[in-house]
């Protein structure tokens, strides 16, 4: 129990002292992992803790990244405004999409997130004048300090740490407890006076906001955006990260992101068939570790957080 509390701090300490001894490639790899870890954790906020079948979370990642990039590239607005605008635009998109989605439940909720998300993708894909269409936007003029990989590393790590802390606080707050209650039992939640549609919408927007932050971070690391950021397969990938790490655990998705991003980059140097590898991971996961890595460990070493490969059941309510 004690150990579980310390591990994240140890991880953070190690990550803080690593850069001087790491080759550039690994700095880049880790910075990429931090970005996606935030994205996956934001998805799990509504997927694992809210029990909402969000099938297209990458949309908010993309909207955040594109808003940030377009403002920097095509307007004279200051950097800070663009930084803030990214997550805000993502949250606003989440509000629009969520407003429709929270009216339905289970699989229908999921299908709506997918359909409306694809709509956003289509707009970005087609609106070439603004978004560069299929080519995306390159050479985003981020301030020069971000040209240093080390800076990018520390900035993404800091933002990730702060965002995880905030999400953690939210989950431990009455809002978070109530969110888990609506996941466990929507009917009963209504009966004790919780407006579940409004509560779910708020959670949806919060998750979108943090995905938008991840989008901004992505641009700071990559200095480019493309429609693949908010493709359906991207959403599937981050969902797999959540499943791999453990839906009912807080750090699971970040761990899943680390494993998947690392593997995709490593495997990518040997073969083009990354998706095949991903498919095999998913297969093994579903068959052997349905509760995810951290879910499995939690179940093994403590009473709580683990168990519950029951998520699928709840999602169909």
């Amino acid at each position: 129990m004690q150990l579980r509390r310390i591990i994240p701090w140890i991880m953070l300490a190690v990550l803080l002292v690593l850069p001087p001894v790491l080759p550039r490639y690994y700095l880049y790899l880790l910075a990429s992992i931090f970005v996606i870890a935030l994205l996956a954790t934001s998805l799990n906020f509504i997927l694992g803790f809210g029990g909402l079948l969000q099938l297209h979370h990458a949309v908010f990642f993309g909207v955040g990244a594109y808003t940030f990039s377009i403002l920097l590239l095509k307007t004279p607005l200051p950097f800070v405004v663009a930084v803030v605008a990214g997550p805000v635009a993502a949250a606003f998109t989440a509000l629009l999409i969520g407003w429709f989605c929270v009216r339905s439940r289970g699989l229908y909720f999921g299908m709506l997130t997918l359909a409306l998300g694809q709509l956003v993708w289509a707009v970005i894909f087609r609106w070439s004048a603004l978004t560069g269409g299929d080519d995306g936007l390159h050479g985003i003029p981020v301030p020069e300090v971000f040209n240093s990989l080390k800076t990018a590393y520390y900035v993404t790590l800091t933002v990730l740490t702060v965002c995880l802390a905030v999400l953690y606080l939210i989950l431990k707050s009455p809002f978070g407890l109530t969110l888990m209650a609506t996941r466990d039992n929507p009917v009963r939640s209504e009966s004790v006076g919780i407006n579940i549609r409004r509560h779910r919408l708020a959670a949806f927007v919060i998750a979108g906001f943090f995905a938008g932050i991840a989008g901004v971070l992505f641009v700071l690391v990559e200095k480019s955006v493309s429609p693949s950021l908010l493709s359906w397969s991207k959403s599937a990938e981050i969902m797999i990260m959540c499943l791999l790490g453990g839906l009912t655990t807080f750090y699971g998705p970040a761990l899943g992101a680390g494993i998947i991003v690392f593997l995709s980059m490593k495997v990518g140097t040997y073969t083009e068939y990354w998706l095949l590898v991903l498919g095999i991971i998913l297969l093994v996961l579903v068959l052997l570790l349905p509760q995810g890595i951290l879910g499995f460990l939690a179940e093994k070493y403590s009473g709580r957080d683990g168990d519950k490969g029951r998520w699928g059941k709840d999602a169909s309510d």
Partner: protein
Amino acid sequence: MLQIKQVAKAFSGFQAIVNADLTVSKGQVVAVIGPNGAGKSTLFNLITGHLRPDKGHISFKGEEIGGLSPHDICRKGVARSFQLINIFPRLNTFENVQVAVLARYRKSNKLFTPARKLVVEETNDVLNKLGLIPYRERLCNSLSYGDQKVLELAIALGSQPEILLLDEPTAGMSPEETRTIVKLIKNLAQNEGLTILLTEHDMDLVFDVAERLMVLHQGQTIAEGSPAEVRRDKAVQNAYLGETG
């Protein structure tokens, strides 16, 4: 306090409630009885907003509540327990009740205060009343059936209602567990002055705790009155009590 007038509800052609009438005054314990399929649970779902009535009026403290959403009705002071166990399986006992108490005090949306510091006293108070304190930290999945049923009641009390609706509070319980529940219900009515509306199969229990009865038969109110009156009622004897002896 609660008034139901000529309420009707149909499910795709099947008339579950044809014509229901019921009056519950403040501080009373009232039971709705009737054979299986008489529409008791449907009536409850209509009162608590899980279903919308086709016809008729449901008013609470003079205010029409028929067709409002469940959370709005709960906020007006109507709480319920469910016939089948309907709790939050992955939260612990304390949190199960706390969720309801937080909603009662409109604190469900607080984002940055740790939940463990809020409404602790109020929640413990409810747990204490129902003897659930020893199970505070237990994941409620791991409670016994009887204790889960008590927790079911505790969640409803967490809303601090003015009227409490109990849908078959002793369904599936052992005689001993039933006695515990009966004691709790009586305690709530007598010492807390809570208004209670319940449905129940166990006729001994009904005649033991209820001051007024309403008999529902094939979706229709066929009698309403004191237990003694209802026992004497010819229509009731024919429709219901007669059958079961």
